[in-house]
């Protein structure tokens, strides 16, 4: 594990960006611990931010573990940026600290779609889902698959914008299989958390998706989704 030093060299009120030893875990509170990374909420330069830290895996050779952490800590902001280029709102990345395998990014103010979707009036719900579909379509059209499209990774801002977060599992790919899995995950997330509105929501998402991808591509991806379902993979509840 990399050493973390505290004390005199960090007395200054600004974190030293060149420092190799910033302990971000003391800068915020842990809000989510995943298999891949831990998420802390904190303040950085007066801004409310997210610290996303990849913690060392003891089973891996330290040298290899570092290399993987660094590669992924680099990859995620790149994908976030590519999503922006595709016209999909994503958090602003403020800093990437490879040494600590930490990404510091904007805390997106708003509500997780997961928590509000069920309580929206039907018309609103359909509108939101269509917008989600358009965003997914934009990603896929530009060769990006998100890899973890649950409604907890979608945030509705007070301005009515939907922001996609957590690109930790994202890939650059135009592979039909990956796109199919992406949509399949959406369906599964709907079925587990928004079970009363699965069809309504999924249909609206596909309408939005279709606007971006066009009917031919949309049909191909949907065919793949049904094939994936028949295969019975990815069946466990999230």
């Amino acid at each position, binding site marked *: 594990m990399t050493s973390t030093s505290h004390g005199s060299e960090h007395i200054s009120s600004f974190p030293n960006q060149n420092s190799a030893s910033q302990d971000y875990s003391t800068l915020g509170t842990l809000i989510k611990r995943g298999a891949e990374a831990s998420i802390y909420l904190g303040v950085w330069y007066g801004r409310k931010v997210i610290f996303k830290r990849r913690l060392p895996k*003891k*089973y891996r050779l330290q040298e290899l573990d570092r290399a993987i952490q660094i590669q992924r800590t680099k990859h995620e902001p790149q994908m976030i940026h590519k999503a922006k280029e595709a016209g999909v709102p994503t958090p602003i990345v403020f800093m990437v600290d490879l040494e600590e395998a930490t990404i510091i990014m904007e805390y997106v103010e708003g509500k997780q779609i997961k928590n509000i979707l069920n309580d929206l009036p039907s018309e609103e719900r359909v509108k939101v889902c269509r917008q989600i579909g358009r965003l997914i379509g934009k990603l896929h059209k530009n060769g990006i698959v998100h890899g973890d499209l649950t409604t907890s990774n979608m945030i509705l801002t007070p301005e009515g914008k939907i922001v996609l977060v957590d690109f930790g599992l994202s890939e650059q790919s135009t592979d039909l299989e990956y796109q199919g899995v992406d949509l399949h995950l959406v369906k599964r997330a709907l079925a587990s958390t928004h079970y009363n509105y699965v069809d309504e929501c999924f249909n609206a998402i596909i309408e939005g998706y279709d606007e971006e991808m066009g009917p031919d591509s949309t049909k191909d991806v949907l065919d793949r989704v049904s094939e994936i379902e028949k295969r019975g993979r990815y*069946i466990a509840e999230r």
Partner: protein
Amino acid sequence: MLMTSQLFPSSLKGCMSSKNYMREGFSLGIESTADDFGVGIVSFDGEVLANVNDVYIPDKGGIHPREASRHHAIVAGRVIAEALRRAGIKPKEIDVIAFSQGPGLGPCLRVGATVARALASYLGKPLVGVNHCLAHIEMGRMVNRVKDPVTLYVSGGNTIVSAFEAGRYRIFGETLDIAVGNCLDVFAREAGLRPEPGKPLGAALEELASRGRRLIQLPYTVKGMDMSFSGLLTAAVNLLRGGKYPLEDLCFSLQEIAFSMLTEVTERALAHTEKVEVLLTGGVAANKRLQSMLRAMAEEHGAHFSVVSKEYATDNGAMIAWTGVLCYKYGLTIPIEKSFVRMKWRLDDVDVPWFGAH
């Protein structure tokens, strides 16, 4: 689903409820998916009476399916006779004939299937077609006394992370191309290593790797929950041919990277399913480094780790016989005319109605 009571011959009903009423039943299982021809005889309550194996060792290169199948055809009679002798039973005392129906190499599978059909037909006993991957998991659960694990099954032909969910063993992660054992074996052969009876290529590679110290950069490919080993193999072979690195370091690096990928995906499945057991099986399970990585990972999650012993982790007839018992108890027999081999049979295509029942 059919009621089990309708499926059971009256003489068998007792064995579900009480051991006292149990009629001695025996299952003979034939394994022939790849280079092993194995015959196991297992009683209905899970006692292994015999587990005989004859492995095909090629003169050069990997498994040639046709040559392996010839080997199987030649040794089949002898291996069956030896299994019966060790079990101390007569052919007519066998109640079920089970065979590995897939997945595997077509010519090899067909030898096992042909032998099984002949036995079933001659003895007038029911035939059960067993999924090879399922048999690995079921044997591991039985001999290691594990209930509901996340299983990592790694061999020359398969690389599967699975766990039981809603009636089947679901696949949470798998290889996108070649199996991890295949990757290690091909590299070992390229490096001039030779398998010996009782010491497969993987063991020779492991020995060299244990003397390696330096980590050489090789591609680490985990895509979501799936893994890829073909690029890793190509890169390692290219470096080997380049001749710049000591073989020990290459073996070491290849193992470290391949096993880290396996452990990472197993960890994700464990975190996702929240199970409390991790089971390691398959031919590659014998590797001590892989065992230690998985143990460390499982401990971090507070899960119990166990590895299937070599006899039952590598391909063997006993696991087919035992899974044959489970299938037979649930009426899952097949008529001879429908017992075609299934070379690409997926684990998650198979219903597991006995799971959780006691």
